[in-house]
Each structure stands twice: as structure tokens, then as C-alpha cells.
């Protein structure tokens, strides 16, 4: 891979798009008690904010996502990760709604994270960055909306880690959230998922180029470690049927086995490509911090051991979706949340979408998902208009 690439922390300074310094430039108190600041949040918007600011849709991205949900990505040159969901006439209709997608706290696309400059040292934070949580990400998003003069969101929506943020938004700011859509998510990270994340983190930390998190001082990047982390994680986003359909046991660019450790199989070649392209756009430390935030997420524990407490007396309308072949965030996790919402008498709808594409299905072309989300968001908007 090209060593001429600028380091991610240099690259992110040059990224296009609006940024806001939140909390008036004052440090924010994190869930751990640590102070962090000033905090900048980079974000993207689509559509027009209406006069009474009632048409806001907040999109929360997943672990390795970013604010470029729509439009050409400034680094990869590829289409946005949720082009299929957001746009004129789509499920989240930018002709009607003002859609905002911030880069999460701890991210590496312009929002304050381990690759950002530490004002105390003048160099990137690295592992001097404090450990953050999903709640801290949500707090930063809420402060961004404060900064932009937006009180209520008509809908907060996200998949995977984004769904965790959605649930936390609804639990922490019930009066600011008219409706919430959590796709392929969970109210807490499972032991298996923590285990997978630990494998990824250990791969990064075992890379000598990681340099205890201060690789930028040496002009290095732990590319092989981050790449292995990505490869391992990527398997968990797919399903055996999806892998089989895509690759089977087909060989890559050869007719016979090499009897060596080249990428003989297409699936190996694919994973190597996934790993290699990921390191071009993602900061290894950011990967450590964001996976940690997901591991710490446990909404049930935060609400005295009863998840229903997170949703008592809420007026928010909820939609939860899961996918049949998702084994990373399986349907049982979504159903746990639905049951808790039922105990709290919350307004919840739930669908398990038939798909063999695994966890990644929420990013892919799933017409049933688009229909369900589109119908839900439209009904919330119409209800809101009728109530005005």
C-alpha cells in the first residue's frame, strides 16, 4: 500500500464539510468523569431545515462509518454508506427532511478523537485521549444540535453502533426525540461481541508500528494490525450464505492451489482488500476507542437492571428492525429491547427482515427495510404536521 498517503490526522484537517465547536468551546465532562475539550464535531447535512425546525432527522453512523452517509466520500471516492436510504424521494426523503449526520466523538473524520490535536501538547492525542462511551457520543451530538439551535429531532436513526446511540438518545433525551429507529442494534454489547473487539484491538496493539498509540511521532501507522482487525471484524458483518454466494471456494487469479500462503481463495483476497483499503481512511487509535465505547454500552445496567426503566413515560415512537441472518446483533437482542419497551408501555413497532446478508444488511439494498423505515418516518412526519 502507498506509504505516500498522508497520516489520517493530517488528512482529516483538510476534509471538506461543516464543523462546530460544541459547548461554547468549554471542555465537556465525559461519563468516566474525565474532561475533554474543546470539542469539535464535523458533520454533513442534506435537505432544508424548515421554519419551525421540526423536520430534523439525525443519522448516527456505525463503528467504521462517518458523516459521509450521502455523496462521494472525500477519501475513498466511493458513494456514501447510506445512499440507498437517504435522498430525494427515498425512505429518508431529503426533499422533506433536514438530515444531519455527525462524525461520532472519538472518530477520525474531523470530530475530536485520538487523531485530533491535543491542545495541551500540540500533537495528536494518541492514547492520551480519554476513554469515551456511547453516552459521550450522544452527549456530543446533543450539544451539536444545541449549537445549531435545534431542540427536537423528528427522527433519530442508526444501525449497529448507530442503533446503540439511537436507544441512548431516546433514554437520555426522551423529550427531544419524537421518533427513533434502531436497526440491527442492541441495548448492550454481548460477551461474544466484546470478544471479537478484543481480537481486533490486540491485533492493532501487537503491531510494532502502533508504538503504544504514539505512532504519529515516528511517522508510522500500524497498518497491518488495523488491517487484521478489519478483516476479523468484516467476517462478523457477513453470513456464511453470503460468503458462499459471493466466493464459495473459488480460487483467485489461478487455476490450481499454490501450496503456499498466498491468497489462493477469493475470500482471502477479498478480506485482504477490505483490510488494506480500510487503513487508508481509518485511524487505528480511533478504532480502539470506538470499539471500547461499544463494549461499555449497557443500557440495562444504566437503568437499575431493568431496561424498561430506560423507556418509562416516553412519548417517543420507536421502530426496531433486525435481520434474520445477523449473528452479530441477532434478532433476540432487538426483541429484548422490544419486550422492555412493552413493559414500559412504549409505542414500539418491530420487524425482523428476511435477509441472508448478515449484519451488513442494514447498509445494503433491502427493499423491505426501506419500505418499513419509509412508512414509519412518513407517518411520524404526517402525525406531526396534523398535530401542529
Amino acid at each position: 500500500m502507498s506509504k505516500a498517503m498522508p497520516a489520517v490526522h493530517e488528512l482529516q484537517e483538510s476534509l471538506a464539510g461543516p464543523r462546530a465547536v460544541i459547548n461554547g468551546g468549554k471542555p465537556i465532562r465525559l461519563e468516566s468523569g474525565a474532561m475533554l475539550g474543546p470539542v469539535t464535531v464535523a458533520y454533513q447535512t442534506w435537505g432544508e431545515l424548515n421554519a419551525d425546525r421540526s423536520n430534523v432527522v439525525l443519522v448516527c453512523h456505525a463503528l467504521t462509518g462517518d458523516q459521509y452517509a450521502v455523496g462521494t466520500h472525500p477519501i475513498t471516492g466511493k458513494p456514501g454508506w447510506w445512499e440507498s436510504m437517504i435522498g430525494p424521494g427515498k425512505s429518508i426523503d431529503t426533499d422533506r427532511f433536514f438530515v444531519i449526520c455527525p462524525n461520532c466523538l472519538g472518530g477520525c473524520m474531523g470530530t475530536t478523537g485520538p487523531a485530533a490535536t491535543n491542545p495541551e501538547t500540540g500533537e495528536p492525542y494518541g492514547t492520551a485521549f480519554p476513554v469515551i462511551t456511547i453516552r459521550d457520543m450522544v452527549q456530543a451530538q446533543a450539544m451539536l444540535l444545541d449549537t445549531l439551535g435545534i431542540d427536537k429531532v423528528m427522527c433519530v436513526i442508526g444501525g449497529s453502533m448507530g442503533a446503540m446511540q439511537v436507544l441512548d438518545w431516546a433514554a437520555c433525551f426522551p423529550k427531544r426525540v419524537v421518533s427513533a429507529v434502531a436497526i440491527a442494534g442492541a441495548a448492550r454489547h454481548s460477551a461474544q461481541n466484546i470478544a471479537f473487539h478484543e481480537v481486533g484491538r490486540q491485533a492493532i496493539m501487537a503491531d510494532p508500528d502502533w508504538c503504544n498509540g504514539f505512532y504519529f511521532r515516528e511517522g508510522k501507522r500500524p497498518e497491518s494490525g488495523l488491517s487484521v482487525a478489519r478483516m476479523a471484524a468484516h467476517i462478523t458483518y457477513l453470513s456464511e450464505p453470503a460468503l458462499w454466494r459471493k466466493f464459495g471456494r473459488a480460487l483467485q487469479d489461478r487455476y490450481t492451489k499454490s501450496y503456499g500462503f498466498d491468497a489462493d481463495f477469493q475470500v482471502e483476497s477479498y478480506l485482504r482488500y477490505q483490510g488494506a483499503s480500510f487503513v487508508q481512511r481509518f485511524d487505528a487509535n480511533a478504532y480502539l476507542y470506538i470499539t471500547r465505547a461499544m463494549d461499555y454500552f449497557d443500557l440495562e445496567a444504566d437503568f437499575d437492571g431493568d431496561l424498561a426503566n430506560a423507556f418509562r413515560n416516553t412519548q417517543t415512537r420507536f421502530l426496531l428492525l433486525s435481520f434474520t441472518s445477523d449473528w452479530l446483533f441477532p434478532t433476540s437482542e432487538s426483541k429484548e429491547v422490544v419486550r422492555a419497551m412493552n413493559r414500559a408501555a412504549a409505542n414500539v413497532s418491530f420487524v425482523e427482515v428476511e435477509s441472508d446478508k448478515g449484519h451488513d444488511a442494514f447498509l445494503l439494498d433491502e427493499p423491505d427495510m426501506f419500505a418499513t423505515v419509509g412508512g414509519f418516518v412518513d407517518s411520524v412526519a404526517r402525525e406531526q404536521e396534523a398535530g401542529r
Partner: protein
Amino acid sequence: MSLLSGSRGRFVLGHNEYGLRPDLALVASMVEPGTRLLDVGCGDGALLEYLVKVKGCDGRGMEISQAGVNACVARGLSVVQGDADRHLVDYPDDSFDYVILSQTLQAVRSPREVLLQMLRLADTTIVSFLNYGHWAARWSMVTRGRMPHTRALSTPWFETPNIHPCTVKDFMDLTRILKLGVGRAYGLAKEREVTTIAHGFEGQANLFAEQAVFELLRPEQPKGKKRRPA
């Protein structure tokens, strides 16, 4: 809904101004406005939407098909994908004032368990079902020697979702076995003709009703007593 009264417990259902199917309009007429309810097997949400938007109920739905849930969600209803056999256990005791099961009882795996679950969630349930005791069904079976094929029962045996067909009398037997209270009960024929099923006179309804709608109450509860909405 308007009930055009006739004589001796007979009515003709008026046209529902929201286009609700007559059997659903009959069910809707048995629900107190402003109550909390769960519609099990709510289909495309026509009844649930009527109860929520017209009768001001706080309604939830459960539906097995994705298409049904999508239709409900698009109507602004809160509906969870699930089936009566497996997912009623997810709700706490006394979650609702009513649980409604329209045209679904005969399609569930364990009708008896489903009825008991419903009465755990609410002290009143409203159940509607097709009556296989209707004279035309009997005539069809006797003359053809095959499963009934009538106007009301037109799906062939290998395609009907009704794996537990029953008659009005069969249903009454089950309510006795389970010691359930029976509130209001109606027979429905020719789409709109309603007959009150009087206690001890089920035989007539069993012969002339194509569909039946029953209000069932918890065993311990005196007949007809209804908990008021909070």
C-alpha cells in the same frame, strides 16, 4: 358504527363510514372508547387504525407477516412482528383493557393457551371466528363428503390457515372447560346480519351464524363486569 335495530336481538350492521369490514365493525362496536388494547393478528391494521383514530384507544398490534407490519407502520400504528402462540408471553400481566383476536383463533397452534394468555394480558378479550357449524357447511359436508365449501368457507383444506376449525358449540364447550366468563356474543351471517347469541340458545346461532364474535372474561370475574379505563 350504526346498529340498525331489528326485533328479538337481531340487527343489521349499517355501513361503516370508514369502510371497515362488517365483522371488524362488529368487534369495534364492543370496545369502549379510550381504552388500552392489543389487536393480535392485526393484518393490515384496518381495525386497529379505526380503534386508535376514531375511538381514541391506545392501541398496539401484533402481526405475523412483514407486509402486514409494514402496512400498519405506514398507517402510524405501533405493531410488533410476532405470532400469538409464541409472543403473547412477552407482555406483562394486565397490560391492556382488551385483547382482540379476530379471525385468528383457528389458525393458532394452541387455541386454548392463546385464550389463557390473552386473558392474562387483559380481563376482557374479544374473539371472532368462522363457524363450521353453519347449516351450509354441514350440508356441504354431508352431501359432498368433503370438507365444507361454502360462501364463508371457501378456502380448500390444504390452503386454509385454520388448523383448528370449530363450531359455536365447540367454542362454548372450551369456555366451559376453561371456566371463562362469556359476555356479549353475536352471530354474523350474510356479512351484515347480526344475531345476539343468548345463553342456552347457542344451537340456533350454531346453525345460522357464518361467523361468531365473543366477549370472554377472566374465570374469577362475575359476568359482565368491566374494568374501567384508568
